[in-house]
């Protein structure tokens, strides 16, 4: 019998299974209904959306699918929403997954956590619960969620779980509405609650094609300013960028369209039982009401992953800073309606990030944001102004700002579990 530190086991195990195409990481969106109406959310629907509710998988269907993914080798399972506790039977779904021996993470906003739910989770501990905090003050929190009273409900949920020793982490998403409270949230979480607090600032359009969340997305220079405010974060980007170099390619040799773990070691299932590469991807779905998980994984997703090739020589194909960029086919689809077309916003963030770590970006096609490109001067000006601002702030190096992903540089942070090791 070997006892390993969990982190070592996880990294080594992911390494070992990556060659074997085993679906070890799964994400199940149990519902898209949610009691909050956050302006940045990519998929939330109203609690009383009867169409959404009636189309959701039943408890029995969930049990069958959980048995099938367990049989296929799933070990880490993320339950997310909408809000998972919007489903009255969520604990029954959870209990089944737990009995199957899955290591379960729960994403929740915490507002529907009751003493009964907290007691249950304390008895049947999940691997982790992650609650998103939307503001340090009631005013900011509720401006973003749109629901009076939601701030107190969230804090109550946090305390109920924390008191019972349920493994809990907080996280937040930086948008224009709460950007001034990010550090206060991190400080509050660490110093007052003793909880780790992660951070992300990448916002996607909604999966129903609405671009409304983008109205409160931070500017590229604001996102990179957060990077610059943390020396460790900058070091992590540097080491990540230095590892990621590839030979220049042509369309013929460029290979598979997807370059994440989706369809190789991870998958997502939506509330109606549609299986796909990740929660963001809204194309290529396999209906688990019509066929079993094994068929969906071994045949359908296999084809999506292995047979979809790069067809256009965009500037992304040979880009050497891709590792610092959230560009992926799902983001391309959501923002441009095309999996291969570069997302301008992400490209700007990545090029500013490269400037922030002092990295010269090797030539990669006709890129507007590289030296000599049409957008370079403006990008540089915005970067320099931001850099001056952040240098003038004497407090910045003392700040602590963790990142959303355990391995820096896994990119998008759009709720997709496909990008990096857990």
């Amino acid at each position: 019998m070997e006892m390993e530190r969990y982190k070592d086991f996880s990294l080594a195990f992911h390494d070992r299974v990556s060659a074997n195409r085993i679906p070890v990481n799964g994400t199940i969106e149990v519902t898209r209904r949610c009691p909050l109406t956050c302006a940045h959310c990519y998929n939330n629907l109203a609690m009383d959306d009867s169409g959404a509710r009636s189309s959701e998988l039943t408890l029995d269907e969930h049990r069958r699918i959980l048995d099938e993914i367990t049989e296929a080798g799933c070990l880490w399972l993320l339950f997310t929403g909408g809000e998972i506790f919007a489903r009255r039977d969520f604990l029954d779904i959870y209990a089944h997954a737990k009995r199957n021996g899955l290591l379960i993470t729960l994403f929740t906003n915490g507002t529907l956590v009751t003493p009964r739910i907290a007691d249950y989770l304390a008895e049947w501990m999940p691997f982790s619960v992650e609650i998103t905090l939307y503001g340090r003050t009631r005013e900011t929190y509720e401006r973003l969620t749109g629901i009076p009273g939601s701030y107190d409900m969230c804090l109550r949920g946090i305390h109920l779980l924390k008191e019972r020793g349920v493994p809990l982490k907080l996280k937040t998403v930086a948008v224009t509405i709460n950007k001034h409270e990010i550090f206060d949230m991190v400080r509050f979480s660490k110093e007052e609650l003793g909880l780790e607090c992660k951070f992300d600032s990448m916002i996607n359009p909604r999966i129903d094609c609405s671009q409304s969340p983008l109205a409160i997305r931070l500017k590229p220079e604001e996102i990179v300013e957060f990077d610059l405010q943390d020396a460790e974060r900058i070091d992590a980007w540097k080491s990540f960028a230095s590892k990621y170099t590839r030979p220049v390619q042509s369309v013929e040799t460029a290979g598979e369209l997807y370059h994440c773990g989706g369809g190789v070691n991870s998958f997502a299932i939506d509330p109606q039982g549609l299986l796909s590469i990740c929660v963001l991807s809204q194309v290529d779905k396999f209906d688990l009401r019509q066929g079993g998980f094994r068929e969906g994984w071994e045949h359908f997703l296999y084809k999506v992953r292995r047979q979809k090739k790069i067809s256009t020589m965009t500037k992304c194909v040979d880009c050497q800073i891709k590792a610092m960029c959230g560009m992926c086919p799902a983001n391309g689809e959501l923002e441009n309606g095309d999996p291969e077309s570069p997302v301008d916003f992400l490209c700007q963030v990545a090029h500013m990030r490269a400037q922030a770590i002092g990295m010269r970006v090797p030539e990669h096609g006709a890129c507007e944001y590289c030296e000599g490109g049409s957008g370079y001067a403006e990008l540089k000006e915005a970067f320099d102004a931001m850099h001056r601002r952040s240098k003038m702030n004497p407090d910045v190096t003392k700040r602590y700002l963790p990142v959303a992903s355990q391995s820096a540089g896994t990119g998008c942070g759009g709720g997709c579990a496909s990008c990096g090791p857990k």
Partner: protein
Amino acid sequence: MTRSIAGETILVPVQNRVGALDSIYTLNDIGTVIWKALEAPSDIGCIASAIADEYEVPTEIAAGDVAEFLERLELTGLICRTEA
């Protein structure tokens, strides 16, 4: 409970009050056979003779290995000894 994935046997806590998962146990082939044998109450002698048959080793050697393995499981709180 155990999960067998990609030829590895992993001990996954199900009902637990331990909070964050800091460490994880994996079992080799013999460990997996022993663990399976423990699904119902059993004793060292029975498990050792099953191992001795399966791996063609003398029963005394198997008994020593089984006793050592059970001791480690007991020390980590994964099993508990009961009186026959």
